[in-house]
């Protein structure tokens, strides 16, 4: 194709055929202006697995309770220790490999975990909530956020109708990236405060490069529901490390549930991709989520950010190739060698945790002194949070290999010391 043609193509995608504004939630509308991006965005419904990631399509017999005909593999089956780790918590009922954005709302609606009656807070990261929050808050985003959190999930979902959409990451007028999640806006300000930056407003003060990570950090983070109002909160005011999160929860005296076998006051960790990434060499080198998960791809003479958000190992050349001049096979092999070493250590940490659980249960049976049991439960709470933190993190250690291994080493130590506390 000649340079001339290319220049033509280049201009086409940005021709505005319809007007979109700050209240246009439907991605299909945006898609009329950006057909290429919309097509790729829809592809997040594809299911393709990698050695440790991606997702595998498992047929599901549709029922009234769960009309999905395809789900992803259950991790409770592939990692047996998880049921024991979460005994007494909804996660022990149903926990699956995560899949593309297209499924975020349905997977949340139909997970067995809903049986326990969840708050509206859940939906913050599973739907296109921006316009709905504005409506509920009569124009005030934070007010709408509070309203959504206060509702029961069953009610909240009636206000929403689709997965994360263009408007959740983009400004309709300029197409610039912007953050729309109040929980992130507040939490990142707390982090910047630690760096000495007061009154940080992410949407006006972040660089474009930072935004390429922050839009993802809106959801791919560890979180909890704070207080009566069930406010979605990210435990970052002491920092982004696992230790900072632990200190935060200890200070808050928070617990997610009580362990069914041991009575320990437990914490559940969820997908801290943003936090673990922040501890790695890629973050230090300014490499963003979008660099790897939404790499540019060529469409004729035009370059577009691939909105088929997925595992970079399914397109290593685009995701890694510019910075690392190796062929696909080698790029994937490098990631997998890190992940395989990681998985083995996770397995070791989970085994140690399960042995601690067995010991505490047995000790309670045999009437071991209460203070010993209390001490052991304390170790269980910490060991469990640490191993869960990297197990729930979805890169299998890739985002920060040494840090993830360090966390697992500590988890192993805590589990074993719990067992020793019962002597």
């Amino acid at each position: 194709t000649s340079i001339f043609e290319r220049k033509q193509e280049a201009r086409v995608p940005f021709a505005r055929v319809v007007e979109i504004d700050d209240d246009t939630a439907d991605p299909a509308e945006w898609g009329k202006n950006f057909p290429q991006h919309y097509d790729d965005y829809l592809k997040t419904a594809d299911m393709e697995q990698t050695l440790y990631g991606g997702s595998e399509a498992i047929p599901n017999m549709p029922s009234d309770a769960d009309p999905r005909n395809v789900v992803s593999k259950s991790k409770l089956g592939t990692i047996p220790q998880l049921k024991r780790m979460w005994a007494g918590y909804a996660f022990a009922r149903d926990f699956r490999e995560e899949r593309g954005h297209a499924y975020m709302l349905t997977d949340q609606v139909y997970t067995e975990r809903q049986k326990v009656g969840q708050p509206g807070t859940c939906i913050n990261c599973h739907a296109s909530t921006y316009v709905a929050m504005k409506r509920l808050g009569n124009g005030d985003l934070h007010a709408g956020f509070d309203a959504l959190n206060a509702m029961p999930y069953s009610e909240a979902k009636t206000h929403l109708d689709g997965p994360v959409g263009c408007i959740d990451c983009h400004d309709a007028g300029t197409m610039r990236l912007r953050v729309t999640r109040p929980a992130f806006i507040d939490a990142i300000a707390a982090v910047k405060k630690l760096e000495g930056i007061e009154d940080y407003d992410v949407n006006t003060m972040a660089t474009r490069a930072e935004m390429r990570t922050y839009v993802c950090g809106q959801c791919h983070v560890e979180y909890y529901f704070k207080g009566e109002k069930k406010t979605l909160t990210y435990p970052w005011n002491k920092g982004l490390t696992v230790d900072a999160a632990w200190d935060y929860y200890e200070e808050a005296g928070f617990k997610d549930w009580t362990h069914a076998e041991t009575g320990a006051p437990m914490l559940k960790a969820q997908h801290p991709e943003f936090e673990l990434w922040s501890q790695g060499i890629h973050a230090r080198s300014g490499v963003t989520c979008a660099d790897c998960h939404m790499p540019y791809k060529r469409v004729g003479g035009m370059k577009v950010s691939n909105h088929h958000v997925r595992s970079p190992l399914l397109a290593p050349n685009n995701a890694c190739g510019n910075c690392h001049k190796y062929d696909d096979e080698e790029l994937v092999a490098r990631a997998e060698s890190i992940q395989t070493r990681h998985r083995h250590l996770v397995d070791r940490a989970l085994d140690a945790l399960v042995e601690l659980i067995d010991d505490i249960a047995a000790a309670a049976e045999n009437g071991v002194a209460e203070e010993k049991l209390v001490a052991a439960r304390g170790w269980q709470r910490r060991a469990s949070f640490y191993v869960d933190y990297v197990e729930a993190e979805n890169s299998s250690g890739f985002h920060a290999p040494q840090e993830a291994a360090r966390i697992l080493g500590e988890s192993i130590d805590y589990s074993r010391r719990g067992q020793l506390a019962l002597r």
Partner: protein
Amino acid sequence: MNEKTARIGVVTLLIALFAGAAGGIGFFTLGYADATAYLGNDPAACANCHVMQGHLDAWVKSSHGKVATCNDCHAPPGGIDKYYCKARNGFFHSLAFTTGEFPDNLQSTDYNHGVTERACRHCHTEVAHDLGTPVSGASRVEDLSCIHCHATVGHDR
């Protein structure tokens, strides 16, 4: 330290030199170090300074070896900017070369980083245009660094 401000000073002095005033170290250096090479566009001229041989060798093999010369990426396309840049680099690099005061593994200065970033956009307008998010009346227009992802296009490092 304020090495930068110091440089600005020297640069103005240098412009004067180029403007005609001859003699002194300035002249000597420029003469023997072939810093005048900066005036031409022949890549070999850059490699005239052996410290740059590696870059030349890598450039020949690079995706740009046949489409862009050193100066296409390391000097503005034209006008006074171009001559300011060449004068500036010509002077500092010659000076450094003569005194030997420079790191074995060169690192581009912020100034030259900017020159190169603009060079990419000059030839790849259509791509750059896709990459600059289509702004309409945005308060802050910002571009991504081409070099962040394409550091090796000119010469693998």
